[in-house]
């Protein structure tokens, strides 16, 4: 019993201590960090690094870019994927099966395969250094997992519901919006959270397609702070906190949904 409690405590500390260090370091000066890297900030809670990072960087801009890209990528992926899932579920024939397999196969292809030709495609289409470009790529790469989860769920809904609505004279669009969507809410919310975390934190595509500061998202901007601030950890950690804040706040309030969403995503490869 003691051993169990002790292990639980150690694991908890392994998570908490690094997070605490991040918070404390963000409130120190560089000199303080060198003098006592693990001590408390000498001047108490001070937020000078936070004001400094907003002055030195176009932090607000990165934040807005990340928000735009994430919101559009998540909502459009959900919209398109749920329409496909509905179509596959209703069709229930070889075309539906073929599309399902086509999307499922996409889950197996690592981003590093399509990224090389994708890079020149984006250049040719003039979609580099553009938030629209990022959104389009994000949607295409997360459609497979979203279609997979949503189709799996919609297939468990009773067919009679759809058929009864058809007999009542409802068209596909009406059945999709009034029957399929409301009933799929649990699966939609889980997928939404999974996509939120994924798109908010994505590094690879911004790294490939964005070079102009005006279009950078938070993870890319953060990565490049490393070049500028080198081992100025107080500044780096201030960036980490600002970039993680929305996810952390959402996690505190929507914990249960996060856990459901992130494990639904894990069932994929």
């Amino acid at each position, binding site marked *: 019993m003691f051993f169990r409690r002790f292990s639980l405590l150690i694991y908890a500390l392994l998570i908490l201590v690094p997070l605490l260090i991040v918070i404390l370091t963000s409130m120190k000066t560089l000199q303080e960090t060198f003098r006592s890297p693990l001590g408390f900030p000498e001047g108490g809670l001070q937020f000078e690094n936070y004001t400094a990072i907003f002055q030195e960087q176009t932090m607000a801009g990165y934040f807005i870019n990340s928000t735009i890209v994430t919101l559009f990528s998540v909502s459009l992926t959900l919209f398109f994927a749920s329409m*496909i899932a509905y179509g596959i579920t209703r069709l229930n024939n070889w075309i539906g099966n073929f599309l399902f397999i086509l999307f499922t196969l996409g889950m197996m292809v690592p981003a590093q395969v399509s990224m090389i030709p994708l890079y020149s495609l984006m250049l040719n289409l003039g979609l580099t250094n553009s938030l629209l470009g990022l959104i389009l790529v994000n949607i295409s790469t997360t459609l497979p997992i979203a279609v997979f989860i949503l189709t799996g769920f919609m297939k468990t809904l009773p067919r009679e519901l759809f058929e009864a609505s058809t007999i009542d004279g409802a068209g596909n669009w009406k059945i999709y919006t009034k029957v399929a969507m409301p009933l799929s809410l649990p699966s939609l919310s889980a997928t939404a959270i999974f996509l939120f975390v994924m798109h908010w934190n994505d590094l690879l595509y911004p790294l490939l397609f964005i070079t102009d500061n005006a279009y950078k998202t938070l993870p890319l901007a953060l990565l490049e702070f*490393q070049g500028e601030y080198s081992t100025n950890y107080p500044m780096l950690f201030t960036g980490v906190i600002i970039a993680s804040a929305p996810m952390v706040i959402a996690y505190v309030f929507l914990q249960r949904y996060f856990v459901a969403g992130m494990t639904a995503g*894990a069932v994929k490869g």
Partner: protein
Amino acid sequence: MKISKSIYFFFLPGVLLYAIFFIYPTISALFYSFTDWDGLSSSFQFVGIDNYERAFTGDTIFRKTIGNNLKFMLVVVVFQTLVALAFALIVLKNTKTTIFLRALYFFPTILSSVSVAFIWSFIYDPSLGILNQTLELVGLDFLRQNWLGNANIAIYSLAITQIWFHAGQMLIIFVAGLQAIPEDLYEVAKIEGATKWQTFRKVTWPLLAPSATIVVAYTTIQSFKAFDLVFAMTGGGPNNSTQIVATYIFDIAFRSYQFGYASSISVIFMVIIAIITFLQFKALRSDRISY
């Protein structure tokens, strides 16, 4: 029942985007893997299977990269799965404390890889880092290391970071799997006088197999795709000792502009992942046991 043809419009936007930004580039990668394309000029030549030959016979860095990836994968899969399972068994019952702890253990999963990379670069920092400082504090000075700068251990340092990052997520999958095991099976085992180990071996383990397979499959693939973490923490160095396939492809494509060759490596990468996924799906099927 006949369905209105309007159903096909439901596929239109998604399939269109998927075809342009995913299927087309993926197939192009296959095509370019047989060329010497540099990614910039519009002309290129077919070189047959030269790229593949080079990958398998001439490229010592690629061989090293595969080795690194296997080391990284092995450490992460074994230790992450064990940690996740051991702790899942302890926090299995729903009480206020366990629910809080599960949420805490899960927490790193929602951070971005770049954030995690910064946090752990600081922990591993040779002079400022908490790791070396703690070792000094408890009198284990001789264990002090340049955790990311030493080519012999850097890949293992990265593996530990990856475990810290994702063990909580796997723990939750195990908890879900364990909680799905009917309580009466344990009662029967108790009545029959089974020891704790026997109960684990005969009841818990066989019924846990599906979630264990999911965890192992997911962890394996995740460890092959750990691009962000490696890219942000070591960039593949020192001396390619932490170069994994995903970062190597990026390097050849976007640092030395050998798009053709990078494509062929990416195709090999895809085949490796497909084989692993296939094997694990098969294992998942055969492991299903019901009482």
